[in-house]
């Protein structure tokens, strides 16, 4: 629990952060809320020589109306999102999920940019953004690019981020009145990471289901869409949910660890998908 010695730099702007990343190369790491990075440094699983602190970049801490979507600055803290009215009104699943991450102290420090950049498949926000089909704005030495969530998460702890790139913004669609959502997180303790999580964004259409977008947490190396459930639910009646949810674990490859076996995770994914879709339909 005692990290290796490191140097510390403060980024004064996004451009400065990019410059510092260029200067120190892969010896360095960006530091946002520190609530993923510092624990692994304390366990000596990571030993960056230089930390580049984004903590001063208050201009990356915002929620703005982008017309049909919301723009969320990368340094927005989980707690900001949990209590943001625009988020509650237009994309409640983001605020609700932010309020489930760890405990209040984690929420006050941790950032949305950090949790997405870290790319932990047990993270809750990656699957929520995936189910929302949101996108991530990335800035590097050659300017800005916008990456779809589906393309951003590439492998366990691996994202599309280049070495000298910084996440600056996250974009999520505004959900209309016909669209319900649910994030169901299964964990043993309220502050725990998800053993399994299910994000469901479901569009209602004339008393049946129009379309459903479902993403699973901790069921593989990245957030995974439950595509066969989505297909089965497309245009289906409401009572099709239980049956459709039975294929929620298709195409997944969950790990076995001290919290749950792969088999149990598959089972939970099915039960939780059923409950998440039902909750989304009623919301």
């Amino acid at each position, binding site marked *: *629990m005692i990290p290796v010695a490191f140097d510390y730099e403060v980024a004064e702007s996004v451009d400065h952060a990019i410059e510092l990343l260029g200067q120190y190369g892969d010896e360095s790491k960006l530091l946002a809320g520190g609530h993923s990075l510092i624990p692994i440094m304390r366990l000596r699983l990571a030993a960056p020589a230089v930390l580049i602190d984004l903590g001063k970049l208050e201009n990356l801490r915002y929620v703005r109306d982008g017309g049909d979507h919301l723009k969320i600055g990368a340094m927005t803290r989980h707690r900001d999102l949990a209590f943001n009215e625009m988020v509650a009104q237009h994309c409640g699943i983001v605020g609700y999920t932010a309020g489930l991450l760890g405990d209040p102290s984690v929420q006050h420090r941790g950032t949305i940019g950090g949790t997405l950049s870290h790319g932990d498949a047990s993270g809750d926000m990656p699957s929520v953004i995936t189910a929302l089909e949101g996108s991530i704005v990335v800035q590097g030495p050659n300017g800005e690019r916008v990456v779809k969530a589906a393309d951003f998460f590439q492998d366990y702890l691996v994202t599309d981020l280049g070495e000298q790139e910084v996440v600056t913004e996250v974009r999520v669609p505004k959900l209309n009145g016909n669209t319900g959502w649910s994030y169901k997180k299964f964990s043993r*303790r309220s*502050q725990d990471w998800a053993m399994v999580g299910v994000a469901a964004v479901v569009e209602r259409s004339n008393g049946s289901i129009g379309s459903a977008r479902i993403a699973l947490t901790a069921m593989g190396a990245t957030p995974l869409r439950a595509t066969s459930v989505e297909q089965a639910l497309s245009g289906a009646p409401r009572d099709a949910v239980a049956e459709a949810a039975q294929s929620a674990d298709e195409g997944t490859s969950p790990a076995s660890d001290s919290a*749950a076996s792969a088999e*149990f995770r598959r089972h939970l994914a099915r*039960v939780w998908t059923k409950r998440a879709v039902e909750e989304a339909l009623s919301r």
Partner: protein
Amino acid sequence: MTQAPERYMGGGLPRKEDPNLVTGRANWTDNIKLPGMLHLAMLRSPFARAKITKLDVSGALERPGVVGAFTGAELADQWPGGVPCGAVVSDQQNSPFFSPIVTDEVRHVGDVLAVVVASDRYTAQDALESIVVDYEPLPPVVNMEAALAEGAPLVHEEFGTNECFKYTAGVEGIDDLFDAPDDTQLEGGGVRGPNVGGQGDTGEAMRRADVVIKERYIQQRVLPTAIEPRAVVASPEPGHQGIVMYSSTQVPHLLKIVLSLSTGIPENEIRVVAPDVGGGFGSKLNLYREEIIAVVLAKKLGTPVKYVEDRSENYQATIHGRGQIQDIELAANSDGKILGLRVKLLDDMGAYLQLLTPAIAVSGAALFPGVYNFENFAIEIKGVFTNLTPTDAYRGAGRPEACFAIERAMDSLARELNMDPAEVRRRNFFEPFDEPTANPAGLQYDSFNLQAVLDRAIELADYESLRAEQQRRRESGDPVQLGIGFSTYTEICGLGPSQALAGLGLGGGGWEAANVRMLVTGKVEVATGTSPHGQGHETSWSQIAADVLGVTPDDVDVIHGDTDAVPFGRDTYGSRSLAVGGIAVYHAANKVVEKGKKIAAHMLEASEEDIEFEGGRFSVAGSPDQNVTIQDVAGAAYLAADLPEGMEPVLNESMIYDPPNFTFPFGAHICVSEVDTETGKVKLRDYIAVDDCGPVINPTIVDGQLHGGLAQGIAQALYEGVIYDEEGNLVTASMVDYMIPGAPELPNFTLDRTVTPSPSNPLGVKGVGEAGTIGAPPAVINSIVDALSPLGIKHIDMPASPMRVWKAIQNAQGKQSGDRQIDASLEASGADIKQGR
């Protein structure tokens, strides 16, 4: 001077300790900074068992800031006694020499093989990486049954066995119904104490019985996670010829003795100070190798040395709790009356014996009969070495294990006989009594009224409507089923009568010391040999002294935790402090009043027999106007200008109190759980605890003890459990993986009390520190099994994690589960053995 007619005992006085603690003004060991202080780091083994074929610390010495790097061989002559074990439970006990730094072989992950001393903790930690070690890994033994099997690798080769000891009581015929392996090796380990015995003929009882419940329960290992990890500063301070050791400990007085035994430093040259201590739960009832190393190096280098463990080390190297495999047979008639009980235990020692390791299971042995009155009882305990972290006392230490076994078996009996679990208990309860009454193991219970606590708990739970709701949910096939679980417990508190402790293999010394003195200004100092680390003795002892002396608790200062300030003491563990230490304070304060009477009589020119004392005022019987306050008397006693002929100056009285018996609190707990049969998740809806710990000195503190104890008991039942993989690596190595529940996981507790005074001490007090960890685990598991019993489920191991509950449901429904492997190895071990990631 304030006059205090009130009675403070029984009132919920806010804790005197809290303002400092909640405003960050506490003085933790890690806050201690001494001039020239150096910092220690430990090189710990990554292997559970390996020979050290090469060890070279010279690389560490080259790093800037490093002052020294040491191996065990270099320091071996500094600790002739090793890390001492103070418990001998059998004449043939195998007690290995436990070297603070190993020299040839590592025996568990976290074992220490070298240390670095440096200018700061970071430098010391980094320098460990420059030490060169070659290991020859050897196959470890990581579960007890495998350890006892023929040809098992040996944790300590010199013994030729992994059996540490065998302890038996009342064993006639125990083997003919148990499929015990034939073992003549350690025959007749010998019952040592007058207070633990088996009796009767359990074999005959088993044959005569209408029903015999035969079950195996596993007490998983648990981590005593104190919020403040272990910390020590050893200082060769000027003015002391020897050493001052500041330690985050529950037992400064024991440390002084044991440190002397370990190092050969004369006891009188050692001073131990326990500054503010952030919890212990039994884990700080030990002299640890790191403390010995710090002391030895402080002496050798002539400068203070600090060591503070981090949380990873806390989980690898601080003692673990529990770790038992319990085979139990309970014989009863069809009317529910118990005929006999026998128990076979395997108790996991881990790789070494710490201070009390072998005594833990033995000290709970006599409690297996629980609160039930029957005749035939036998028990056999085997201590087993494994290549895992040593075990020792954890909140309850031996009693939660015993309580769990009997209380689970009582529920199985009720189910077998189709009886209400409350009724089966009632039929076997002792009738109320208030004179010592022997239990089936010969333990002298002090006073019981079990019927009252159970009735009250049932009333508070609204038992009948719970059963009705349960029925409704069963009939409607609700995925969430309701379960109601009982436990009626007793436990041993007030450790203890010195003679009885000797009988338990602990040598004796169960007394406690107190000194009560009144200063010239009328203020009071109470020096106590107990060593609080969260229990609030400063508050409770002030209440006792204030009531006896007729002053206010604010007038009283309680001094503790320093062997120079309080020369004699036996410290704090085993819910002993109030029933032994608090009583010592009470007696010493009464002695002050007695002496005060003599002085008052002299001052008032009356005869001593005519002096009455009330509310801090001595007066002459019949003429209340003639009076003096206790403060006046204290002043007169101090100045000594006019005292009765031959009287010693100063009101300054001491008491060393050896209790005549243990005390036995008891209670009835009811857990109401909702079990989600689709996910296996258990939610506790309600928890009702009606406890009887005798008269209560401070209800706020007692409630706090119960809340914390229940939380830890529920934790063992539902959340916590040490997991090792087959190589002996600790999988639950951090607070992410080791599931300590927080407030959101716990129900609101419904607490109530009855009051049945103990006949053993003048205040009638019993003790309450461990009631929660003892009562809760069986109540929780009983509630889950109750919820799932229509499926034919009879038992679920602790912790009843969602996966485990789900698997039990799957198995009951005849669905195969892919995780049988895990369960199979689990069966054989008190630790949960799993494949790593």
